[in-house]
């Protein structure tokens, strides 16, 4: 069972497409990939919280919700309160680059860059969630969206003067002095992390409705402009 290959179906009933079974990845290979994670996370029978929380039944779980005995970062707790749940798409984004999805997470991990490795390790974790043989019903997530930003977006050089104007909208809520009570601080935020975070909101991978709205109408150039401005004031 735990070494079987796993499948999930993406049901596009709305537009009348036939049911397509989509492979997440190779769980057996994923067990090897998980060696990068096992220093902090346990999964499987008897798994307990360690440096990181245990990962049993991670699919469908609200972020930051493993009992009272695990102390999450403020950022992860906040993301959970905002409605972040762990599904294929959000987990894929998180393990690709934890900070892209959750600013201030204590998960100090450079991320798994290869899409196949992520698919395999998620297939492995999926074994330890409910009803793995019945995946579409247990966790009917969409296909993982493309979370890798194309190089041309990452390489975009923004206009800092435009960024300064756009940033005035951020400062209605995010305090200029860096205080983070209630609303996260955005001062001293590394430029690359900022860019991926904005794109994660724009694609609604990050859960917060205000930020989804704000980022949702920013063009790639405008995100680059904001990043250029924030980089300038560091």
């Amino acid at each position: 069972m735990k070494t079987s290959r796993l499948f999930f179906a993406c049901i596009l009933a709305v537009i009348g497409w036939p049911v397509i079974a989509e492979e997440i990845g190779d769980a057996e290979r994923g067990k090897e990939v998980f060696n990068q994670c096992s220093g902090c996370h346990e999964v499987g029978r008897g798994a307990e919280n360690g440096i990181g929380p245990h990962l049993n039944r991670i699919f469908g779980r609200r972020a930051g919700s493993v009992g009272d005995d695990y102390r999450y970062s403020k950022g992860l707790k906040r993301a959970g309160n905002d409605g972040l749940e762990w599904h294929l798409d959000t987990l894929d984004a998180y393990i690709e680059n934890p900070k892209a999805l959750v600013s201030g997470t204590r998960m100090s991990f450079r991320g798994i860059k290869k899409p196949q490795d992520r698919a395999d390790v998620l297939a492995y974790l999926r074994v330890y969630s409910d009803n793995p043989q019945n995946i579409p019903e247990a966790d009917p997530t969409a296909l993982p969206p493309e979370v890798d930003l194309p190089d041309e977006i990452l390489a975009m050089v923004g206009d800092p003067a435009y960024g300064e104007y756009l940033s005035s909208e951020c400062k209605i809520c995010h305090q200029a002095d860096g205080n983070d009570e209630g609303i996260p601080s955005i001062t001293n935020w590394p430029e690359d992390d900022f860019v991926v975070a904005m794109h994660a909101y724009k694609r609604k991978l990050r859960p917060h409705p205000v930020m989804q709205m704000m980022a949702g109408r920013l063009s790639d150039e405008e995100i680059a402009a904001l990043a250029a401005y924030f980089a300038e004031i560091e």
Partner: protein
Amino acid sequence: MTLNRRAFIGTGAAAAAMLSAPRLGAQGKPRVVVVGGGAGGATAARYLAKDSDGAIDVTLVEPTRAYYTCFFSNLYIGGFRDLSSIGHSYGTLASDYGVNVVHDWAVGIDRDAKTVTLAGGAVLPYDRLILSPGIDFVEDAVPGWSVAAQNKMPHAYKAGSQTELLKAQIEAMPEGGLYAMVAPPNPYRCPPGPYERVSMVAHLLKEINPTAKILIADPKAKFSKMALFQEGWQKHYGGMIDWIGPDFGGGNVSVNPEEMTLDIDGAVENVDVCNVIAAQKAGRICDMAGITEGNWAPVVPATMQSRMDENIHVLGDSTNQGDMPKSGYSANSQAKVAAMAIRGALTGSRVFPAKFSNTCWSLIDTDDGVKVGASYQATDEKIAKVDGFISQTGEDEALRKATYEESLGWYAGITEDMFG
């Protein structure tokens, strides 16, 4: 804070007309005068001064030295904030940003000469004028009520002494007494404001006078966040709040401040507190400037310029701009667009496409916060909504608590953005 404002404006205008005061303002630099130091005016003054690095001479005219924000004043009524925590001064705008802060009333505008006359007699010349005076009340909108009756029947819709008075009246209600609110017709300042207020009054009464009742007479069949408030009232204050919409005569009211009675469609109620929030219009100075059409001042969306005078920009509650609600957040957002446009016109700095947004948080009970928001863009005819969101009924407690905490962060953020 706003006591006898009309009377004061009247005498001030007469006095000013008799004086010929010297012109103020530094020579050589373009001059911007900002009238009104709230979310629109203070933000505009700060951004103009900050971003022009001294190239523009900015004067802010605001009568009060201690400014109390209307947003969060309901939380003071509910006991979640003390009054001093929503009071702000203009010291930093003057000392750190070089804004000339003048504590006086603007009592006249000469659009041909491009000058603002103050009650104290000074005449301020401008190249661009920003009017951000907030709201005034439409006379005779609620028969029997006028601003002269605001000590008997407070509106508490300009924060400060009115808010203190209303809270004191609620605290002095007899056991099992009645608090009534006359809610305003659209459009008005802060669409969820009256209903957040009712929530906060209920919270206070539940603690100090749990058998007291709340009655709302409302001319509107629907109001902002209606489902969220009604769910919350049921959950936290079951049986205490009675809302009378227009189908049951809520739009046909009159009051008698001497007798402390409220007449709803012919049925006369004795009330212990009567919070009259009358129909609203642009702050009076907009009328004096001759830039209103009906009750509000129409503006060009991309720059917030008056449609009547390109040298005047109007911000916030006084404007007729399109889809944005009248809120502090909206005024702050509009101020940044106007400041950019003015800098572009006066100093040749770059001008970018206008972007607007708004979010309104409301507190229903302890740790039970909700929000509504939208983003907007400028079209030729109006500021048009692009996208929006609203809290959902049935949300879990952790999310509601996080939403409330977020509003605290927003309050700190926007007041820092306004006052430095």
